[in-house]
Structures are given as structure tokens and as C-alpha cells.
């Protein structure tokens, strides 16, 4: 068999039994690798659900303020953190999704094969690799030092993390829209902006929305960019634009390092809440992909 030089030579004249055995060993190893990945996943889910379910109650999810970590479960609740997570992640999505989709529109609809579009796409890929803690430091240096702690700063940090992800997923979806649709609308005399807004984006909306939901699901669990942009307070702060705030993820981080039973229980309860939020977003994304995606790979 002709094999590229430098590759391991494969000798098909080896005894058939041994070759078959090697094949079975390799296949077994692949399944074993899959099992290796399932073990921690199942272990984590089992622990979080079994320990979290006993902590969760209506008053845990909505009550407040968050009690000092020495107090046992049943005092106060994580309401402030739930509200904080929802408002900070929600506003981050409001910032990042329109900008990301428009960026993808530029790359796919306007830039084409030009160098600028290629550079922007390349940089978006590189930006997905920027560590989340660096995003936190970045927002700290350009925002917190001048304007103080606020939920808004947390939204900026999460938005910066979501932006390249939204660009990448929207771009993949726009690429799938057939050119015949665009050409048909140009033939009717529509301008490029009109074609993009009324024909191309609606055709790709299913994929764009599900990609954006996955980005939100990832962002909702981020801790590092929030630690020193929103601080971690104990009471509800519904004003996103001023004053320190709190979030489920940062509360888990603080409580996980505390030696008290009540704090541990609150950490597990918050972890379960966070995972349920993330999985729910992912499930909705899957449903949208299955139902509303017109052009799939």
C-alpha cells in the first residue's frame, strides 16, 4: 500500500488474526476514551443534582439577602445572585448579539474574499482564545478604574467573551444561505442592505439564534470576568448601571472556599441553579436548530 513517506508503514501481509486483533484493540480504545469522558460528566452531574436538590426551594431561589456564610441553610436566599446573573448576562447578550451578527454580516455579505474580512474573521477566532480572566482585567483597567464597580461592567466583560463566538456561529449560518435567494432579490431591484435584512438574515435566523443561545449559556456560567468587575454583594441590586452587584457564579466561588456547612450547601444549590439555566438554554437552542433551521450543513 502506498503511504506518504514518513508515515508508519502498514504491512497488509501480517497474519490476518493479528491485524484483526489490533483493529479490535483500537476500536476498544476509542470506546474506552469515550467512557473516560463520561465518568467525570456523570460524576459531576450526580453530585451537583444530589447535593443541590436538597438546598433548592422557592425561598432559596427568590429570597434574600444572601446570609453570611456561617449561617445554616434556610436563612435568606440566593435571590440577589439569581437576579444579578439574569440581568448581567441578559444585558451582555443585548450588547454582543446584534454587534456579533452585524460583524458576521460584514464578513460574509460585504467582505467576501477581501483581505479585511479575512483579517476580521481570523481575529475573531483568535479572540475566542483570550482567557476570561484577561477580559476581566481589561474591563477593570478601562472601566472600573474610571467609573467604579457596576453590573454594567460585568455585562461588558461577558459581552466581550460572547462577541467572537456569536460572530463565528452567525458567519457559519450566513454562509449556508444559497446565493440564488440573494440574486432573486437583487433582480427585483432591492438594495444590498434590504436583501440582507429581509432575505438573508430571516433565512439564517434559526441557526443564528441557536448559536447565540449557546453563547449565552457559556457566558452565564463565567466567573473570572465578574470577580473584579461587579464585586460580590449580599443584597439585590436591580440597577445594572451603578453599584456593586452579585451573580450565581461568583457566589459559588466565594462559598466553595468557605469551611461552613451552610455555605457549602448554598454553593451546591447555586451550582444546580446555574447548570439548569445553562442546560435549559442549550435545550432551547437544540429545539430551534431542529425546528427552524432551513439550511443545515
Amino acid at each position, binding site marked *: *500500500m502506498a*503511504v*506518504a513517506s514518513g*508515515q*508508519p508503514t*502498514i504491512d*497488509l501481509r501480517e497474519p490476518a488474526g493479528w491485524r484483526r486483533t489490533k*483493529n479490535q484493540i*483500537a*476500536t476498544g480504545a*476509542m*470506546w474506552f*476514551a*469515550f467512557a*473516560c*469522558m463520561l465518568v*467525570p460528566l456523570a*460524576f*459531576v452531574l450526580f*453530585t451537583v443534582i444530589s447535593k443541590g436538590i436538597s438546598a433548592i426551594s422557592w425561598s432559596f431561589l427568590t429570597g434574600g439577602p444572601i446570609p453570611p456564610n456561617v449561617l445554616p441553610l434556610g436563612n435568606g436566599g440566593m435571590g440577589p445572585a439569581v437576579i444579578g446573573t439574569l440581568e448581567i448576562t441578559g444585558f451582555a447578550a443585548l450588547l454582543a448579539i446584534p*454587534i456579533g451578527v452585524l*460583524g458576521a*454580516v460584514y464578513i460574509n*455579505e*460585504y467582505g467576501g474574499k477581501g483581505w479585511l474580512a479575512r483579517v*476580521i474573521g*481570523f481575529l475573531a*477566532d483568535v*479572540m475566542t*482564545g*483570550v*482567557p*476570561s*480572566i*484577561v477580559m476581566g*482585567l*481589561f474591563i477593570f*483597567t478601562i472601566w472600573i*478604574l474610571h467609573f467604579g464597580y457596576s453590573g454594567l461592567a460585568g455585562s461588558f466583560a461577558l459581552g466581550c467573551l460572547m462577541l467572537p463566538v456569536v*460572530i463565528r456561529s452567525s458567519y457559519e449560518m450566513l454562509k449556508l444561505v444559497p446565493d440564488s435567494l440573494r*440574486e432573486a432579490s*437583487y*433582480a427585483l431591484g432591492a438594495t*444590498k*442592505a434590504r*436583501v440582507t435584512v429581509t432575505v438573508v438574515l430571516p433565512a439564517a435566523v434559526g441557526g443564528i439564534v441557536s448559536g447565540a443561545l449557546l453563547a449565552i449559556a*457559556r457566558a*452565564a*456560567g*463565567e466567573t*473570572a470576568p465578574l470577580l*473584579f468587575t461587579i464585586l460580590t454583594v449580599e443584597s439585590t441590586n436591580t440597577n445594572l448601571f451603578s453599584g456593586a452587584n452579585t451573580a450565581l457564579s461568583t457566589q*459559588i*466561588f466565594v462559598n*466553595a472556599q468557605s469551611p461552613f456547612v451552610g455555605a457549602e450547601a448554598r*454553593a*451546591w444549590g447555586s451550582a444546580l441553579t*446555574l*447548570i439548569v439555566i445553562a442546560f435549559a438554554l*442549550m435545550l432551547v437552542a437544540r429545539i430551534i436548530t431542529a425546528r427552524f433551521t432551513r439550511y443545515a450543513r
Partner: protein
Amino acid sequence: MSTVTQADPANAAGSAGPLAHRRPLGDRAFQILALACGLLVLVILVLIAVSTSQQASSWFSTAGFSGIFSTVWNPATNQFGAMAYLYGTVITAVIAIIIAVPVSVAIALLLTQVVPQRWSQPIVYVIDLLAVIPSVVWGLWGILVLVPWIQGIYASIASGVTGIPVLDSLFGSNTSGASFFTAGLILAVMITPIITSLSREVIATVPTIDKEGAYALGATRWEMIRGAVWPHSQGGVVGAVLVGLGRAMGETIAAALVIGSSAQVTSRLFGPGYSIPSVIANQFGEASGEFRSALIGLGVFLFAITIVINLAARAIVERSARRMRGA
């Protein structure tokens, strides 16, 4: 507003007749808006580099080269040497890569070459679940469940290797549940989804004709993978591994909770250590002045390292993709 010189089907059609030889204002405004949104990526990357280095400059200038790369980190005496953190970051990421790469590539091969199409989708969903579990939840599980459990295993391994030359210095005494190795293990689990999905994309592009050719010569599936799939996807998989390496180095919260928080340069993998992202997460809150500048400086290092790794990864993936299209 400069005139748009771009080739545009709408314009080309319009310019043929007397109608609409210039694009309406709204149309051009939309293009400029889209361009601005795209350029924001560039702006943010530049701003990250500029604003963080500016804040870190006082550390860079007062500590000097030898101060930065020393192992002494003592906020009380204003000595901030980054060596122990750089070391811990690299060691944990390397442990994570050594564990995660074989597993991820094997799963990618399983998904593309072994399992039938309709089964591979559920497996992908399961991997996505892994990707969506927040870092802080891995950390919580790590510190409260994994660390106490793995402590005993480390201790028995350490007593088993006592006196054996190399193994003793790697896995020997002074074990702690929260250690370089525990952090590496958790990072490995966390980067498996990204390496798997990137390798899967690369491996899926292997031409069917190559694979069928190998089968036609009588190759078993494993021989087909080694002879047809692997030479084709090598480059792309290396790129995927580099992306995973970058992720492992930048991963913060999970590592911060299980790494042991003890700044030391040691060969003992079962001993406590520290890494750049985790020291920033743990100490930034109480830092000010020179201390804060040094922590931001560590962030600048991290940013530079991950940017270089990601640039290399994308370049490798793109080059190998081009070569494969040409072949």
C-alpha cells in the same frame, strides 16, 4: 463618506441603466455599521493589549527583567517574581494536554469513523453538555469531592515510588489533594470538548475516496485510519491541540480552587502549586498599587502567551486545510 468601490451585484445591475447610479444613503450606512461592528474585534484586542500593559508598566519598570523572572513573590516587601506562576501555568497545561489529547482524538475518530451517523449526534450532544458545565462548578466539585478523594491515592502512589530515582522526584513525598496534578486533571476534562470538536471537523474532511481506497486494498479499519485518515488530518489535529493548550493555560476558576495556592517551582506533581490565572483571581481583590500592577502584568503575560498560541494554531490549521484542498 468615501465612495464604495466594492463589486456589488446590486450596483452592477443598476449602473447599466439610467436608474440609481448611486446607492441610497441607508444602504451605505448599513454597510458602514456592519464594518464598524466587525472592526470592533480588532479594537477590543488592541485595547486589551494597550490598557493592561499601561497598568502593568510600573511593575515592568521597577522589577526589571531579573525581578520579573525571580521566584520570590512577597507583597509585604514589594517583590513580585512571576516564575512560580509561569511554571505552574505551563505544568498544569502540559498535564492537561497529555491526558486530554489521546482521549479527544480517540473520541473524534470514534465519531467520524466508527459510529454510524445517527448515533454520532447524541454523542456530540453529550460532549456539548461537558462544554456547557461552568468552570466554577468543576472547581466546586473538584475542591469538595475530587480533592479529598484523590488525596489517599496520591499518598499511596507516593509511598510506592519512594526511592525510585525519577518517579520519586515526580510523584514523591509532600503530597496534597489540591495539587498541580489535580488541576491538570480537571483542566483535561474541560478542554476535551474543544479538542474533540475541532479534530472532528478536520477528520471529517478526509476524502471518502482515500478511505475506500484503503479498504479496497484489504486494510482493516485501524489500518485505514493510520494510512488514510491520519496523514490527511495530522496538521489540523496539531492546531486543535494548540487551541486546547491555550484554553488550559487561561482557565481560571477551576484551577484556582484545586491547585493548592502555593507558589513554588517543584518537580513534585502531587504537591500544591499556583498558576497565573488563579493567582489573579485569588489575590486581585486585596491588591493595590505595585501589587495590583504586578497582577495585571501577569495578565499581560497570559494574554501574550495565549495570543501567540492561538495565532500559531489558526495558521497551522489554515495551512494544512489549504494543502489538503490542493492535494
